[in-house]
């Protein structure tokens, strides 16, 4: 298989399991994101792929070849560091061609590659500057360019945008994606920003505490999270306990929840009688619908620009509903319905969540 594959990767630091049994497959030319909170092992996994860290267990394959024992300098990967890690004593140009020099490429070919990348990333005015004479965004682009010039089999990004301001982040995000597509690069992108992950990826791997929680397309993860963690981390869904009462149809179940009785339509049956269910804040219809109608008092209202968050409390838990246009204010009652299609069963057991 071409592309990148990591099989059953485990990493242990002294007593800490940083990664447990991770399987990662990145088909050639695709853009895969590792998403997870700080400390979940994202950088550790990139270090295993680049070769800076030897996994305690598991193998890494690039284009079908086992590279687990190949040192980083002989692996065909290029990493964009979170800290940029530009060489402070070398000019932008020298930084950009560093990898080509190491590969012993001739001057003419180097100059051509350099011209390509410089055009692509609009670095023409800065070639003779030193990294500390550049702005943060320019440094970021140099770091990107330095990895791109070598045209690696696999390009890795470790939170490359985290040092940029919100606006620049948006622009560079698009740049990275379009360059990746233009060159047909196989890319692994690390972030803890769910918006970034949803917007950019062909496929997302959600990591939590060193374990793979769920992998899937952005749509899968968003609409059909399988665990409470994914539901919460990707777009902060409302999660609540439910007791399954009966199976109304082949794919419809009747459950009892803190919000009252609800119908759930699901392709997969619930794993137990007591389960967790999740629903998206925006996946509701205002007004009294015969199915799954809920009435609650708005306790807080928060205007977010494109939409407005409305919060209500039931049994000491806060829930959130999102509307693009609403006149409701705190203290008023609202009635809405959650369509059965928009509720999913989660697979973590209730007891595990409770502890």
């Amino acid at each position: 298989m071409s592309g990148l594959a990591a099989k059953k990767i485990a990493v242990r630091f002294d007593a800490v399991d940083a990664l447990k049994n991770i399987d990662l497959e990145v088909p050639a030319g695709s853009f895969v994101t590792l998403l997870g909170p700080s400390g979940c092992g994202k950088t550790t996994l990139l270090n295993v792929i680049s070769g800076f860290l030897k996994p305690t267990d598991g193998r890494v394959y690039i284009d079908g070849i086992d590279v687990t024992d190949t040192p980083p300098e002989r692996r065909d990967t290029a990493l964009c560091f979170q800290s940029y890690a530009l060489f402070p004593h070398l000019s932008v140009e020298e930084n950009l061609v560093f990898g080509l020099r190491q590969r012993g490429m001739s001057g003419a070919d180097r100059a051509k590659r350099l011209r390509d990348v410089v055009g692509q990333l609009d670095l023409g005015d800065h070639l003779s500057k030193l990294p500390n004479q550049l702005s943060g965004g320019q440094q970021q682009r140099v770091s990107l360019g330095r990895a791109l010039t070598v045209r690696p089999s696999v390009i890795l990004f470790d939170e490359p945008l985290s040092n940029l301001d919100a606006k620049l982040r948006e622009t560079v995000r698009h740049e990275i994606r379009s360059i990746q597509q233009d060159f047909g690069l196989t890319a692994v992108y690390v972030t803890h920003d769910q918006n970034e992950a949803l917007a950019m990826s062909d496929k997302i791997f959600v990591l939590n505490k060193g374990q793979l929680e769920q992998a899937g397309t952005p749509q899968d993860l968003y609409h059909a999270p399988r665990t409470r963690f994914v539901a919460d981390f990707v777009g902060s869904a409302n999660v609540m306990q439910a007791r399954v009462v009966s199976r109304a149809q082949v794919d419809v179940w009747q459950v009892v929840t803190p919000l009252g009785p609800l119908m759930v339509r699901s392709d997969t049956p619930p794993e137990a009688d007591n389960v967790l269910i999740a629903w998206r804040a925006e996946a509701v219809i205002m007004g009294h619908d015969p199915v799954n109608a809920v009435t609650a008092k708005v306790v807080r209202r928060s205007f977010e620009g494109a939409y407005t968050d409305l919060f209500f409390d039931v049994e000491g838990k806060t829930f959130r509903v999102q509307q693009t246009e609403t006149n409701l204010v705190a203290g008023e009652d609202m009635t809405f319905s959650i369509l059965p299609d928009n509720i999913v069963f989660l697979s973590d057991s209730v007891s595990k969540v409770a502890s």
Partner: protein
Amino acid sequence: MTRPSPWFIAVLLLPGIGLIAVFIGAVIYIAIAQSVGFYNLTGDSGFSMEFWEKLIGRKSYWTAVRYSLFIGFWAAVLSVAVAYPLALWLRKPFKGSLTISAILKAPLMIHGIVAAFLFLNIISYNGLVNQLLVWTGIFDDPRRLQNDSGAVGLLFLQVWKNMPFALLLLTGAVQSIPQDTLNAAQDLGAGTVERFRRIIAPLTVSAMQAALIIVFIDALADFTFQTTVGPTNRQSLSQYMEFFRGRGRWNEAAGVGVTLMALSLIGAVLMALTARLIFRERPIARVVTWYETRRVEAQT
């Protein structure tokens, strides 16, 4: 910080900086003046290049210059060359690394003369090294290793004493390179040698220069090691200067003293520049790049 009146500053600086300036200034002045015939303790004084001419005409003078430069250069280069790998090895702490660096730096605390004695003790005719070499059959009989004419023993001692100092400077410099920077180089295909040549050495070039300069000046002007373990058929500049002074030939001693100071200065500047040129500016690589870009431009 505040900016008080310059007079106040001058008064504050007078006892310390003033004393240093006057003392060192006087020493340098007397050395130069005596080398051209002034301030003679006996006989007439007056400007004369006679002593310089005599000095330059002597073969022994040039031997001493060459020999001292040889010792200074190699002591500096070897100390730095030995210290670099050790500094890189100790860059990241590991179990026992503190002990190791303490052992390595111990010679800093041992007086040069004591070191010379310890060394003589080990390599003496009936010393440990000879016994070992005879015992292993490399030598048939003990040999005289002391004061070897190739100055190997002397250089060994110089490195023993000076390497820890270079290590001290380089460890600090090497530790300030972020791990990410080294990883980036390795990720882009740079092996151990290339990482050293292109990243580590250029980024630590100031510490390297400082180490080279300090060791060079120290070894160039060495007297104690030379007179205890150095070759007996050659003289270092300090030894040569003391030889003239001991005979009351102050003017020639002054000539050698001025030579020593000039060589310290020139040698130090040259070593620092060379280190910078090799590792920072990379003149050859620049010319090659320039040539190649020219060729590419010509083609297109």
